[in-house]
């Protein structure tokens, strides 16, 4: 379907509806707008993900799409108390999301085919958890439980 961009008109409430973020959702976006605290950091992170995709970046859009899917699941499961992760490419071609609270550390490697690997470490007790292989296709409850330790 081809859309023709409309003529510019004055701002109206429809703008807010159109500003609904696919992940944040209308309610969150509107609340952020009303409070003047729109999460620009989220926007920058989102743009970073976009910048990774071909041709400006080295990755396929589908790969970044997998990351967005996982982030959506994490927000759905854990809510917005989960901070944005440090995000980077790993040497083996995965996109890594990592959280570090000082004591607790979690990272998730997301590979182009959607397979996952994760790692958790409690730097105080020395406890380790995670995968040895990149074979997961969904977020395990163990990982979500570990991530709850990093909620703000």
């Amino acid at each position, binding site marked *: 379907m*081809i859309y023709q*961009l409309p003529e510019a008109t004055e701002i109206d409430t429809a703008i807010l509806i159109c500003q609904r973020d*696919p992940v944040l959702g209308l309610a969150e976006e509107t609340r952020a707008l009303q409070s003047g605290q*729109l999460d620009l950091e989220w926007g920058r992170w989102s743009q970073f993900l976009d910048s990774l*995709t071909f041709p400006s970046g080295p990755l396929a859009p589908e790969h970044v799409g997998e990351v967005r899917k996982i982030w959506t699941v994490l927000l759905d499961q854990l809510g917005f108390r989960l901070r944005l992760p440090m995000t*980077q490419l790993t*040497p083996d071609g995965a996109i890594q999301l990592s959280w570090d609270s000082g004591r607790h550390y979690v990272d998730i490697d997301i590979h182009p085919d959607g397979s996952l690997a994760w790692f958790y470490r409690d730097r105080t007790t020395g406890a380790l958890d995670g995968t040895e292989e990149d074979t997961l296709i969904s977020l395990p409850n163990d990982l979500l439980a570990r991530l709850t330790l990093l909620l703000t």
Partner: protein
Amino acid sequence: MGLIHIPAGGRFPNGTAFAPSSEDKAVKPIRVSVWETRRATYQQALRIYLAGKAIVRETVACAVHVGELLSFREREARLRVVWDPLPSSRGHGGDAHCGIEGLDHLPGGSRKEHKKLLDDIAQRAVRIDEAAWQASGQGTPGPSLSVEARSAHPGISRRLVALISVFVVLAGVLAGIEIGRRQVNPLRVLPAASVGSQIERRITEELSAALDESESVPQPSLPIVPAANARVGFVYLGICDGGAWTKAYFGGLPACGSDGTLPANITARRGTKVRGTLPAGGKFGDEVGRLRFGEAVRLVRIHPMLGDLPLPGPKVVWGEISR
């Protein structure tokens, strides 16, 4: 080291910074490429590090004392730091290049134990900027590295070695940006303007005038395909990556889907008017998105007309597709 995004307050580095890259794995034994900070400036190391890389953006570095790194040899006997000078043809500072061996994950080894080792090393590392790098190189220089130090790590055991990574800063970058292997013209910096009712006019008139000077290749009709999950409602400025400028203010489209996402295909013709809203707290200069014009992709950002001044509230801006 590769592309990385560090959120506000995020700690850098983590263990992944010390995982050998594909370039590091090209040599045997595998060596993580680092720089001895007293024998090269940050800029020298950066110039060599970025040579030949397609995407040039901001960088971040971290450093660790070799002695501290080698304290982990009890757990990984392969660990050592070697002097690995680069040919002078690579540029000044190449003789500061070193390598950390023993950081690769051996087949059959425990992934968790390997990541624990990298995490321990990362905990000893600190994020440094150019000033910190330079400060580390001041004072009485130690004995010059000898060729023998190539395989004798004690020769540099008290030195600081640093890794450089490409660090993406998505706001306020005005220098020329390489997209793929083509150089994009830098945005012209316009005079700052106060927040007020003239924003729309200034954007459409001043920015248009500035960009028109750089435009050279007419493109009468451009299909716009927004990137997946584009944030509807922001205003986008398209930057042509083919040497000519294309501009498009974009966002807040009533035509967007009921779920808030942009439709899959939009045809924007020359003269088509678009509009959008900058959110409260948004700043001109924020890079907010990217649009695909046919097969080409343009990095887009709100023009930095207002400097770092946050908007007092949602602000409607509008413009038109001129090409």
